[in-house]
């Protein structure tokens, strides 16, 4: 009996750990929202400066924000998503983070 107990505990811990790992690996999105006052050129240069995207990608994202009201501009780990979100807000854009799915 003594030899069975540690095995059961170890198995339970392993299950819990794998569940936690799944949760933390979910992708986070950085979302930029449309507003009626920000010039389009400002949105493009902010995307270019913060993410280093090409001119055409920045313009596409800006147009998506303008026409659809919002656009996902970056996806990945939560910490980096929050860091990018802060940079966008510091540059004066309306940005938030959200968990994918």
């Amino acid at each position: 009996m003594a030899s069975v107990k540690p095995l059961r505990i170890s198995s339970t811990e392993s299950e819990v750990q794998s569940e936690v790992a799944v949760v933390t690996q979910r992708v986070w999105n950085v979302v930029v929202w449309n507003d009626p006052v920000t010039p389009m050129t400002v949105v493009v240069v902010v995307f270019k400066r913060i993410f280093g995207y090409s001119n055409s990608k920045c313009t596409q994202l800006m147009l998506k924000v303008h026409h659809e009201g919002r656009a996902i501009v970056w996806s990945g780990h939560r910490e980096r998503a929050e860091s990018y979100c802060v940079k966008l807000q510091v540059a004066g854009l309306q940005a938030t983070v959200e968990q994918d799915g």
Partner: protein
Amino acid sequence: MPGKLFIRRRDGRVEVRLNDAGREVIRQIFAHVVAAERDPTHDWHVALLAPINPSSDDDDPLSTLARQNEIATNAELSIMTLNEQFLNDAEAWAWLSTLQVGLRSMAVVNGILSDERLEACDRALLEDIRTIQQLLFELAACF
């Protein structure tokens, strides 16, 4: 055709060609952003508190602090360089960021959240917004 207000020179600096009246307009916006960041009772303060993660009750304090520090740093750098004729890249970026923060704060506190509200807003306010947009448009062309 009027000349450009901001010009990126070959050495990388941005030349500011604003007259005294233009610099005064910008000074007031920078001063409002600094004051709003420091004073919780300032009209614009609430506009600087947009949530980073709206699905959570509270944002990560480190992210909030980072945002607060960076906005204040940009605004203070902008005020310190207000009378310069030439700005380096970081200074010019601080000007752009602070002007844009000021523009959005002005829009948020006046409830301008749609194109219709913008067109219907007070004439003097609309003129202020158009002035800042023009400054931003010209400064953004340097990046």
